[in-house]
């Protein structure tokens, strides 16, 4: 018994028997049984549906299951579809506006929670800001539906303001997190050095904090943009008639017939997202100071 314990202890501490280090060196997660199968399965599940989707956007025929030759006709159809153009423009406009406002507010929130002395309830503030990450989207959606309906009745206003407000609130945590992370890793002595060199608090912010924060702000904006572009549930509950965004429009179309036109739109959507993510990496890497 005692011997077993001692042996286990030795093993836990790394062991002194000569065989052990050698075995450890050869140990690799890749050699675990099933590693390859699971990895392949995961990648297949992740990418194969998308590959098929993209492939059939170029299908000559109307089928999603039978390849009938290459054609760009569905792209042409999508481009000529007025409705698709309208909802795309609306989606982009909404994403830029909501993410823009959210980024501004998130920047202020991040400054307020990192560049002030700790105040009571600070942790609470983090939680409150991050509400959209914790409350199920559908709950927020229904709550907004009821809330917005009440305001509509009172004011008669049915414009895009509701969607902008809802998307902005939803985007704030996604913009807040990278900005705050950037502020927290930024060397605070830089701002002290600026103050020491006669910069007023505003000048220190303008010439030191802000330029160094730009990668965080860009990251926050792009994340917010992608989130707004993508969100279905909230839009679905809040939108008035004729305020479809690209995702809600596509959802609506799918209830009818699924032609490869949808594939074409989805592929374009995918390309846009990839472009933004790539731009994001390039920007943050180049500005990475």
């Amino acid at each position, binding site marked *: 018994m005692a011997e077993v314990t001692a042996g286990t202890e030795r093993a836990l501490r790394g062991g002194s028997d000569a065989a052990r280090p050698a075995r450890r060196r050869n140990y690799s997660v890749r050699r675990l049984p099933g590693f390859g199968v699971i990895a392949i399965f995961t990648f297949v599940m992740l990418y194969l549906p998308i590959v098929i989707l993209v492939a059939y956007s170029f299908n000559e025929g109307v089928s999603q299951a039978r390849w009938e030759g290459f054609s760009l006709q569905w792209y042409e159809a999508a481009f000529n579809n007025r409705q698709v153009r309208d909802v795309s423009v609306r989606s982009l406009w909404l994403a830029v506006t909501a993410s823009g406002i959210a980024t501004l507010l998130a920047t202020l929130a991040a400054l307020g929670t990192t560049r002030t002395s700790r105040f009571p309830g600070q942790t609470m503030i983090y939680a409150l800001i991050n509400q959209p990450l914790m409350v199920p989207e559908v709950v927020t959606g229904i709550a907004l539906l009821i809330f917005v309906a009440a305001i509509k009745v009172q004011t008669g206003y049915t414009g895009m303001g509701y969607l902008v407000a809802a998307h902005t609130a939803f985007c704030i945590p996604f913009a807040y997190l990278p900005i705050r992370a950037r502020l927290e890793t930024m*060397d605070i*002595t*830089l701002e*002290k*050095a*600026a*103050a*020491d*060199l*006669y*910069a*007023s608090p505003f*000048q220190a912010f303008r*010439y*030191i904090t802000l*330029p*160094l924060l730009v990668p965080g702000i860009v990251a926050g904006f792009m994340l917010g943009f992608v989130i707004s572009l993508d969100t279905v549930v909230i839009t679905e509950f809040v939108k008035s008639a004729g305020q479809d965004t690209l995702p809600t429009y596509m959802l609506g179309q799918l209830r009818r017939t699924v032609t490869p036109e949808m594939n074409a739109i989805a592929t374009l959507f995918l390309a846009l997202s990839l472009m933004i993510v790539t731009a994001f990496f390039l920007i943050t890497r180049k500005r990475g*100071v």
Partner: protein
Amino acid sequence: MAAQGAGQRGARDPVQTEIDIRKVSKVFGQGTAAFHALTDIDLQIRSGEFFTLLGPSGCGKTTLLRVIAGFEQPTGGSLQIDGKEVAGLGPNQRPVNTVFQNYALFPHMTVAQNIGFGLKMQGRPRAEVAATTDEMLNLVKMEEMAERKPSEISGGQQQRVALARALAPRPRVLLLDEPLSALDLKLRKEMQGELKRLQSETGITFVFVTHDQEEALTMSDRIAVMNKGRILQLGSPHEIYHSPTERFVADFIGDTNFLELPVSAVEGAEATVTLPGGNGTAARLPDGMTPRPGEKVITVIRPEQAHLVEDGPADLQAEVETAVFFGTDTHVHLRLPDGQGFILRRQNVDHMAEPAPGTRVGLRLSPGALRVLRG
């Protein structure tokens, strides 16, 4: 140009007080968690001097610098810079610049933009900013690097840029928080000389923080030795080294022999103490200390202030334990008759033989070298 002007300022009135610190204290936290980082600091730093704060880690050196710079407000006492009370003024309103321990260069600006930053913030005209930046680049020999970013220059070069940036607005006082600690030994020696040169060329008052006693001794006009938030002793490197008044100071700076000896008589600031073996010798007393005859006191003497005597009268006898050859000098470890250990440093002129272990030798102490310590 202006650097000369600053030099004249220093030369015109060399004993003018630049920073006047009275009874300054700093307490972090409250109640039972209160921590006294600075206690009753009284300090007058003179215009144009190279002043050093020396002390072990955590003794409050950085805190004192931060209080002077305006990053921390003292919890008590008053602080004047250039005759003006600065309580409540932010760092951007004080004629004081800091060289930070980690340099804190602005990573998104070029070397030249870093150096010109202070002047730009002061609202100086463009042409003046450019001219002074060039002058500073020249002063720290960084002209070739003007357009590089801080990440594209070496540590020693960053150090120079940090210095130039802090000097460019011509502050009355430059605060340096262990500016050389990140550099390797060779570069460190080089920058020590460089700092001295910059200080004498600009005439700006330097307040330099270090925990390296050798650096403090070689560079400073005056040194304040700190421990646990208090200033223990203030004086020239000579005074600090040769006339320590506290055991901590003597121990912190250089190699030291402490001897516990009985007092036989006291006359003014001098006591007569009895050496092991029975000979009496004079020992200086610190201010305000008058031990009674018969009382035992701690005395201090540097290893190089005792000498081996071949022939002639000796102050005391000792037995050689070991002798360690260091090239220019030899450290002889001795045992005194009453059992206390003693280290003697002998300069090696010509080819002197090392004293063999076990030999009995006579020791002579430099007159006036023995000092009594407080406490």
